């Protein structure tokens, strides 16, 4: 495994090049350029703020009884990392077939492709952070030193997402219907993660279920270090990192096992 990781590190220039290709190409020809990567989560935030802050809840969302704008901020805080996660998953389901020419026609380290997907989406996420901070300042929310916890959250999310993306990209080559299941699963997963509601507002019985979801703790770590301005629940978070590493290991193991079948099946 260590050898394989070294191998991946040796491909870093390739990964960097492909990520910048993706970033350049994605918004080339669109008027707003790379700002689209910010508008998508922003739009999602506005929709949920309107729906849950004004229509359904009538500003009675637990924890934000009197402050719709704080609720919007809380939403954006969670949606931004979630978008990184869900876009990575959806794209990695396609990436091997979309980039089929690379696999079939030249000798190419395939594992670079899901890495490219997760990394590209991470860059979009990072580009979204200044906007988040802008809203913090706009709504008079304090910026705390706990925000420096960000790299830890980032790394743990990267590892967990990467593991799942290895799994998804390898399996979709053989089972095309995973793509369809995945988008539904992600919708479900979105609601099973404290993004549009707070972790605290969940009834005790359901908290057990919520705790089993690694994304709960990852998103919570962003909530804590940004929105709540305090140290994340480090015990839960430490377990999450271990679970993430396990997923990464298993995901890569399967990917590596199936690697030779990609040429023929893509």
């Amino acid at each position: 495994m260590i050898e394989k990781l070294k191998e991946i590190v040796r491909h870093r220039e390739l990964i960097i090049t492909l990520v910048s290709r993706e970033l350049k190409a994605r918004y080339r020809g669109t008027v707003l350029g790379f700002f689209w990567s910010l508008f998508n989560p922003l739009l999602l935030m506005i929709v949920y703020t309107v729906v849950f802050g004004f229509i359904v809840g009538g500003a009675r969302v637990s924890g934000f009884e009197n402050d719709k704008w704080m609720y919007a901020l809380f939403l954006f805080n969670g949606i931004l990392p979630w978008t990184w996660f869900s876009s990575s998953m959806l794209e990695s389901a396609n990436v091997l077939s979309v980039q089929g020419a690379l696999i079939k026609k030249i000798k190419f380290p395939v594992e670079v492709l899901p890495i490219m997907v997760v990394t590209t989406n991470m860059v979009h996420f990072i580009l979204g952070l200044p906007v988040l901070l802008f809203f913090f300042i706009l709504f008079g929310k304090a910026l705390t030193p706990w925000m420096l916890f960000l790299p830890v959250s980032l790394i743990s999310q990267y590892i967990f997402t990467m593991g799942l993306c290895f799994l998804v990209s390898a399996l979709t080559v053989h089972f095309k219907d995973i793509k369809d299941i995945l988008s539904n699963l992600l919708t479900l997963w979105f609601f099973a993660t404290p993004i549009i509601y707070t972790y605290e507002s969940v009834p005790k019985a359901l908290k057990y279920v919520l705790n089993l979801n690694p994304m709960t703790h990852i998103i919570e770590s962003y909530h804590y270090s940004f929105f709540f301005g305090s140290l994340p629940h480090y015990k839960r978070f430490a377990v999450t990192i271990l679970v993430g590493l396990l997923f990464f290991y298993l995901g890569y193991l399967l990917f590596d096992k199936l690697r030779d079948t990609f040429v023929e099946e893509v």
Partner: protein
Amino acid sequence: MHAVRVHDVFKFYKKNADSHKFLTIKSALVNKTLFGDIAAGERFEALRGVSFDVKSGQTLGIIGENGSGKSTLLKILAGISKPTAGEVVTSGRISALIELGAGFHPEISGRENIFINGVILGLTRRQIQEKYAEIVRFAELEEFIDNPVKSYSSGMFMRLGFSIAINVNPEILLIDEVLAVGDASFVPKCLDKINEFRRHGKTIIFVSHDLATIERICDDVIWIKKGKIEMRGYPKRVTDAYLEYVGKKDEVKTLAQHGEEEKLSGREKEKRWGSREIEISNVRMFDGNDKEKYIFRADEPLAIQFDVDARAAEDDFVFGIGVYNGDGINCYGSNTLLENYAARRIQGKGRVRLTVPALGLVNGTYFLDVAVHKRDGYPFDYHHFQYTFRVTSSHRDVGIARIPHSWEFSDNIAFSKNENS
């Protein structure tokens, strides 16, 4: 020293990739189809025990029919796919020209794509920077290099891809038929570059259907037939054996068609007309040794022969033949009247034979017309497009007819002539 060693390589594919789609994850895990071996009945054996080695600096050609396993072999050599069994050992950096411009992104400029493609092919950005000017110059794209690749013509696209791949500076170069898509002016340039590689002692493995090029640039040729090496040796010897094999196979096919077409009465009507007062039958072709044959070399003698049957005595009749190429262009036509044979009398059964010392046609499939009619054109029996034959040879000249010729040059013009071209 060997640059490439291939030892007893097998490659099996699943025969029906589609049936796979209905698999569930559960059954895949239970039956181990995802990781296990492919059952004997369900597999297509693309390569069946191929062994050979290539000395460093050698140029090896690989020929074979479509589906014989050439491309599979090349992909295995390139490290793109893994052999089912057996071993491939290579020494030195490999560049495979299997698909040019793989990884090009249409939306971004040629300049950026050079860097991306170069990195994909294993160069560092620095190395690409050093070769950048040469890549652009060789691809002849100086003016367009900042335009997005989607605006390139297919020729420009291919030129850029070739230029990058060749500038990877490999020790082993694998080429799969890519030159077949190049524009006419660029192909010779590619061949020059390949020759330059040979002079620099690089190892080249070249897969192609273009036998003349194979004969010209290869030191050694392997003929692969149904996943096995049928023959290896001196290029001319192998390509000749291959041509003969393909010729024989086609001949069987053409002979079979020959038998069939005479039975097809519906089609016969469209292609055959006339009063039948004189009837033509049993049209056959022979080679110089009087052997029935329908595949000829361009310089080979041949004969066209047919039986005639005149029910009543006639004194006005003309025998004629016509040869058409695959485009329906009349390459040659003549008849006894045009050649001043004045008809006197025909009655009962007889035979007509036309002998050609050398065919003088370029490679291709031809149709033969045979007819007997009156001087004014009134048809007795006209067989139009009824018979086919083929001309195959390693000559690569084009046109309608092969005009006998030779080149002469003054002393200040120098060529190194390859014996086969």
